[in-house]
């Protein structure tokens, strides 16, 4: 799952060097619109991210946990 998130970030031009679960999206240059954009891309890959969870996603780990709920 981490690899998938990493490649999604790369596809969208964000830096991924040294990416960990603690990495904050803001520090990668992912602003609020950027995060919506990433989650819409994830939807196209078959994941569901409930709207109300969006505001809870601050770090890569937060996203992985929300995605984990899909498993």
């Amino acid at each position, binding site marked *: 799952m981490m690899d998938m998130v990493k490649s999604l970030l790369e596809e*969208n*031009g*964000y830096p991924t060097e040294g990416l960990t679960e603690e990495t904050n999206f803001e520090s990668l*240059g992912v602003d609020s*619109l*950027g995060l*919506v*954009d990433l989650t*819409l891309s994830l*939807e*196209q890959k078959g994941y569901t991210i409930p709207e109300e969870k969006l505001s809870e996603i601050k770090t890569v780990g937060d996203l992985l946990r929300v995605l984990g709920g899909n498993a």
Partner: protein
Amino acid sequence: MKRIVITGVGVVTPFGVGLQTFKEGIFAGRNGIKPITRYSDLPVKYAGEVGFDPLQYFDKKDAKRLDRFTQFALVAAREAIEAAQLKDIDPYTVGVVFASGMGGLEYLENQIVNLYTKGQRTVSPFTVPASIINIAAANIAIEHGFHGPAFAPTTACAASLDAIGQGYTLLQQEEDLNVVLVGGSEASITPLGITSFHNMKALSPLNEPTASRPFDKRHSGFVMGEGAGALVLESLEHALKRGAKPLAEVVAYAATCDAHHVTAPDPSAEPQAKAIEKALKRAGITPAQIDYVCAHGTSTPLNDVIETKAIKQALGDHAYEIPVSSVKSMIGHLLGASGAVETVATVLALQEQMVPPTINFQEPAEECDLYYVPNKAEKRTINYALKESLGFGGHNSVLVLRRYEG
């Protein structure tokens, strides 16, 4: 009245990125029209497309978020700002007036396709900030940290001449404003852009690279171009104080509206002529002092005939004594960017004392009886030049520029 000068220019044109290639192109009378490569199956096969790799100028993230028209705008603005050596300046004294006719058409168009073919959840959250017309101005302000007023005139094909005029007016009105980055950008060579202009019969139906023939008997519509032009405007006093070298002076701006029809120019040509007359009056000069007219010259029969009529009405017999040429013959019609790019051509004409030609010219169209500088640039003494732009909606805008002799 403050004296307002241009201290830096930058362009992205069908000749390529940067002022040098544009300068060489217009004075060599080169044809920048080529087959469209970014799309196929369009009703028109030729345009003034810019060879442009966004990743040469932007990182992947920004390249994805910025429409092509904003990318052109930012690249042209960087060149103008660098040329003007604009640095260490109070950011609240710098404004941005940057126009576009269509804005982020390509971005918007792609998202509409997504919406109707793949569903609501595929519409990019960047759609609004990528496509709104003011976003080129806003991105220039963001990139350079300019905190003065920033906005976008949207008067179709007159938009960027109005941007220069509005920047000039702001500098006259606002005591605490020293610099305004002005210009315009356009990137409408898209399926919707080309098809819309084609279906309204504005584009030449000829699929030939030499279809842009302003004032020529065989003119049959315009050829679409794309690109951007940016200019740094500031008061002469401010420019000299910071050691900047003025390239040319803006001495007047005037605009009128035909109030006649949404696309067709007023056949009397009176409102167009009035705009020229007002500009001359504001410049404090007579028609006889104009040495060159850088025309709107679209290559549509309606424009070419009525523009010629307006120039004659405003300048009288003097119109026959001076060169009148159209840069669109070489690069096509850059819509909302055309006024800015052609003003840069006019600045070059004043600096080099050389008139860019109207290429693809063989025989004048009926009622087009001025001297259009056929096919070859000409050395001339130019002290005052007139630049005019006309837009759908009946917008007539005119600038008077003066040679700067420091």
